[in-house]
């Protein structure tokens, strides 16, 4: 009888804790502090979208900080491109969370850890989505408008195939150029998520006419000068720029990029200095937590 009552009390406490931890009605866009790498989490109500998973398992701690404890489902995991500093932590994500959609491109990587991620994804029951320029992924009021890669760009690859499987083709090009670029949109709030794209691809992206005025930009390629360009800033006019960067040997973020942002008086945040960067929006205005 004693145990029965203790059990009931625990049930009551769990329900209260769950109620207390339940999310508000705003969009929370968090650039996780995962060291050198990208992991960006969008939380909107019960919906989570994770864009990239960083190089190590640090992303798990970020997910656990921002997701309600009873929610073990991530609606969308998007992998911009198969490089370790973007997918490294995703293995652990697939082990620990139920993932509904895995959004990626079918470029392969020969690394052992990517092969092991592929088999984990395959066994996880997640639906695969291979989006190209112009497609949109909708989750309630949240939209992911896909800006890159374009069908034409992919078709230029010799051994590209339309097979809807992970790692369907290899390329001599830099994997960065295949980065999935998307605009995350909640009503009037737009965030441009850029993967590791560089100047060349940026020019092509601008020609697609799919990029426009945004509030938030994730600075491409960890602030490398082989990333953000003036042209992209001219066309997107962001108010806040987030650099996802950690200790690295490349000198990221490069001072050219920092200067570029400074000149335009764009508010700049860096995960290596500010930790997790959480931007909140109600669909009209935005603020930093």
């Amino acid at each position, binding site marked *: 009888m004693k145990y029965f009552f203790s059990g009931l009390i625990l*049930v009551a406490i769990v329900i209260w804790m769950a109620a207390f931890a339940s999310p508000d009605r705003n969009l929370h866009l968090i650039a996780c502090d995962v060291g050198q790498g990208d992991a960006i989490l969008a939380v909107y109500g019960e919906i989570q979208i994770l864009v990239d998973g960083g190089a*190590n398992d640090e992303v798990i701690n970020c997910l656990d900080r921002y997701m309600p404890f009873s929610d073990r489902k991530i609606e969308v995991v998007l992998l911009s491109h198969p490089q370790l500093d973007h997918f490294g932590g995703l293995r652990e994500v697939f*082990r*620990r969370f139920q993932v509904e959609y895995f959004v990626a491109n079918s470029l392969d990587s020969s690394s052992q850890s990517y092969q092991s991620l592929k088999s984990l994804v395959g066994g996880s029951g997640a639906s695969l989505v291979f989006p190209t320029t112009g497609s949109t992924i909708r989750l309630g009021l949240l939209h992911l408008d896909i800006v890159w890669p374009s069908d034409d760009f992919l078709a230029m690859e010799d051994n590209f195939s339309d097979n809807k499987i992970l790692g369907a083709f290899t390329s001599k090009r830099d994997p960065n150029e295949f980065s999935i670029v998307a605009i995350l949109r909640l009503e009037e709030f737009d965030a441009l998520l850029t993967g590791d794209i560089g100047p060349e691809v940026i020019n092509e992206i601008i020609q697609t006419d799919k990029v426009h005025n945004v509030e938030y930009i994730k600075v491409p390629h960890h602030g490398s000068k082989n990333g953000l360009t003036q042209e992209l800033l001219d066309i997107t006019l962001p108010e806040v720029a987030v650099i996802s960067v950690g200790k690295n040997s490349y000198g990221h973020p490069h001072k050219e990029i920092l200067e570029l942002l400074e000149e335009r008086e764009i508010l700049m945040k860096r995960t290596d200095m500010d930790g997790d960067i959480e931007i909140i929006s109600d669909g009209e205005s935005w603020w930093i937590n």
Partner: protein
Amino acid sequence: MTFKPLFWLFLIILIIGRFVTTRPDFSNGDKIRITEKVSSEPIRYETSQRLIIGRLKTYLPKFPEINYGDIVVVEGMVEDGKLIDPKLVDLNFATGVLYKTRKRIIENFQKSLPEPHSSLVAGVTLGSKSGIPQDFWEALRETGTAHVVVASGMNVTLVAGFLIGILILFFSRKKAVILALIGIWIYSFLSGFDAPIVRAAIMGSIAFTAQGLGRLYAAGRALFLSAAIMLIIRPDWLTDLGFILSFVATGSLMLFERKIANLIRFVPGIFREGLSTSLAAQIGVAPILFATFGQFNLLSPVINALVLWTIAPITVMGAVAGMIGLISITLGKSILLLSFPLTTWFIEIVKAFG
């Protein structure tokens, strides 16, 4: 009566003999290749994992992940108890049902609860320490509460008590004891067969057998007998910190716990047992910890008192959820969720002091 001292003398000689003859005979600079079954769970760091192979500390890259029970072939050079420049030549995954079961249970914990809650439950119920986030592990060490997440004898005692409590409802006393014994040993195997677990399993077995046979059980003697049995089978445990701490702590508990409990009757009931146990254990353990790690937290008994009461229910819920989770993850998860308030309490206290 004269045979008793002789018996103990015989055991001691046997232990020394075993220790000397099983000592690996490589010296610094030797290049060696070892094939061995991994006998305890590797500790994982950000980019590496640490195994003990042939009594040598071996740091291997994090991937492929090596688990308790896997068979590894490793090459490297011996230097001061370490294997340097180690290379993993071959890895055969554990095939035993129990190894796989353990892995599945831990994975289910990780699927059901956020960190560090899931690794706390995994640590408390199965002595698994590989998934514990670095900062939480540091906090556990600083507060002197790490003993609850490494395999500890307390788990065995809890499981034994729980099993007997349930089994006695359905079986005769004798059958219940036998089944509980089997259960204890399956549990020790599942928990990675670390020294403290084995110690508790042997002592528990001696106690239960004595009960079953209607003999008097002398805890002190059982403690020494288990130490002897363990050292005969695994002489290398003589230098294992977990082994030493486990015996010293149990010995101090036997000597001081009751007296301390009488002294601190003013402490509220729920915290009293935790405080008296940890104070008693600390008498023996503190000097060893201080000598080994050079640090010791004076507040540790207080912190332990605040959190130890949560361990019994977390262990029981974790064990039940672990078993049920093998059949239905959803059901297992809902049981685990019930432990969330308790793990939250534990974690917040440890973080506050850590």
